[in-house]
């Protein structure tokens, strides 16, 4: 088992996700980046689950998939509402949280 390859793939995906979250201006793309991060974590979990021969990691990954689906649903709903109110989904224009 080449654990390293899996872990490497996960790390790459994670970095791409982080880059997406930070650099992208589009809210939908940011959500997609978050998905990437979550899935990289899933890959990590599965890797270690396979290595240790324990079902815990698989279970956890399944949970994460379910939660991620819900999260995307909520996130897209938010984006939709923001678009209706602001006519834009550019994150730079959404700075109401400024202190």
């Amino acid at each position: 088992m080449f654990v390293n390859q899996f872990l490497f793939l996960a790390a790459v995906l994670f970095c791409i996700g982080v880059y997406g979250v930070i650099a992208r201006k589009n809210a939908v793309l940011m959500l997609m980046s978050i998905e990437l991060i979550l899935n990289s974590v899933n890959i990590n979990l599965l890797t270690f689950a396979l290595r240790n021969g324990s079902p815990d990691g698989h279970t956890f990954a399944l949970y994460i998939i379910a939660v991620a689906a819900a999260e995307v649903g909520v996130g897209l709903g938010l984006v939709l509402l923001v678009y209706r109110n602001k006519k834009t989904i550019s994150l730079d224009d959404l700075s109401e949280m400024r202190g």
Partner: protein
Amino acid sequence: MNIFSGETEVLAPLATGWFLENAWLIPVIPAIAFALIILIGKRLPMKGSELGVLSMFGSLVLSAGAGYQWIQRTNSATEEQFVAPVIKSWNWWQSGGFEFGIGQHIDGLSVLVLFVVAFISTLVQVYSLEYLRGDRRYTHFFAALTLFSGGMLAMVLADNTILFLLGWEIMGLCSFMLIGHWWEEDANSRAALKAFFTVRTGDMGLLVGISMLYFAANDWTQENLGLSGFSIRGISAWALSGEPNSTVIMIAAIALFIACIGKSGQFPLHTWLPDAMAGPTPVSSLLHSSTMVVAGVFLVARLYPVFYVGLDIPGGGGNLIVIIGGITIVISAALAFVQNDIKRVLAYSTVSQLGYMMLGLGAGAWLPAVFHIFTHAFFKACLFLGAGSISHSASHHSFDMKKDMGGLRKVMPITFVTWIVSTLALCGVFPFSGFFSKDEIIDNVGYNGYNTFMIIGLVGAFMTAAYMTRATYLTFFGEPRGASAGHADHGDAHASHDAHDNHDSHDAHSASTPHESGLLITVPLMILAVLALSSGFLNATPFGESWERMKLWVEPRPAEVIEETHSGGPGESLIINLPSSEEGAAKTVCGSAQPESGVCYAPKLKHAPFKWSKAMISMVIVFLGIAISWILSTLLFTKRDPRLVGLTQRVKVLGFGHKLLVNKYYLDDFYEKVIVRTVAYPISRAAYWFNQNILDGILHGFANNTRKISEWVYKNVDQRVVDGTVNNSATFTKSVGTAAQPSQSGKVSQYGALLFSAAAVAALVLVIINT
């Protein structure tokens, strides 16, 4: 059913059936009906009463089925074979090592009482349809009535003392609700409170008794039967095993009996029962015939081994139960003579009859006492419903015999005939049911060595006959008086002395002439009267063995049994192995010594052989009572004989006795003025003094000092230290906030970048630490 095949013969398996196995449904139906009536009753076409009647009818069908199958079961057993009760129990809840079960214990006794309760409840509910029509709390009345019966049914088939207690308390609550049904009148709510608290006083005994029995019996029952110390079966076996410490079991029996004194209206806690007449008449009928007051008697009959051993019943001579029972019979019968309220006469008569049941149980006459529960339920329910019928249709809701009744026999023929039949049954005249049960009690009490109490029983029979004759005379004979003569309470002037003038008005509230009640009232009366006449033949000892059906069906046969527990089904179900028919093996009659093997659930009881000579004596006494009372009543109430009228004013001794009776032996005064005053008043006064002087002193001193301290604290600590700290920290926070403000750009990407860099730093730290 497993069969234990003995050395010599194989005993037949006992018959069982669906109704026996599922008898636990009987109380569940009214419980569900109660919830439904409360929730949706008001929206139903008959305001929820149909649910009550239907549920009671359902329970009646189920208990009749159970009764039928129980009879088959006893018939399938041989003469001396132990007829195992059908027991089912489930684990209800567990707490700290205590297990509380819920389940059914179906044997002859519970089947009998289940049937009586369901039957009387059904009739009473039908009767209430008419009697309470238009009442402002009609729905709630039926809800409470249904729950009341449900509580009794649950108590009757309880397989353990906890469930028993539950049913017992449900009844206590419902009796409170029902007696105080018309709580707008002060007297009614006082009566309800009195009933509740008097019974509560006794209930303490039940709690004490149950816990004592649990702690005393649990080890033995767990070890030998695999049952908990709450199980009625386990407690019975334990009491007869010869194991229990005689002091412990005696105190437990006394504690339980105190509960029975409260619930069954025995002396000295009988005072609540006559006041319970404040409730609507159907409630009185149900409460006094089969439900509430029988509970105490039922408790003694149910846990009979505990009382049998604890109070040394086979010893003869006298024990707590017979003494209390005997006192109750005589004093309450005497009280019945001075009552003007027809329902109060019946109430004291109930108290007296309950005294008979207790007397019978206390003297080892288990079967006659249980049989008396059965017969008494029918004729007493009939009498109460008859009284209700009179007040409903003839006397303008008055129960006063002297003012508003008299001469009603021609106007209310059905009520009159049913009343007479039930009265004769109550007095114990030969072919009527009361004879077969009451005479058996008196007979057996004497046979078991309680001679003094047999005489008390006979005196009670004389008094019963006399006061019932007086009540009958006042109600149905003589000249109509007051409302029953057509005089309305509000002084309406169209006094029609012609009692035949019955214009058949169904509106009892506006009709001023007395008339017969409607079918919903008279049909239950007739059914009950037929049973009052005939139910005695179920155990007609005078006609020989073959007539003693009740003995065959109800009395436990005290053979030894060897038990085994089996787990199966939804809970633990008990499978009883039948007794080995070993000859000569230490057949020490269950109860008198510890059996060698197996256990025993009921003591072996003796039965007095029936003799016509003894029955004749009591019959003569009863007829004397009726005759003397009839003559005196005629002279006193109709002819107004000058020798009798005002006798109590002229003769000092009689006057004293009369005054004592009218004031109910001053027991109420004693409770309220002496006990409540001496106990409650000094306590409250002491509490007041303590409050005023000590507590207030402490409080005032404390307050003054506190004020001084707090002033100092305010100046020095609060203003300088606390406020200073708060102000400084606020200033600090403000400056930090100002400094950090630029980072709060409101841009999500920036926040994300901060978050991830922080996470990266944390990961780095983690890696460094772990390597």
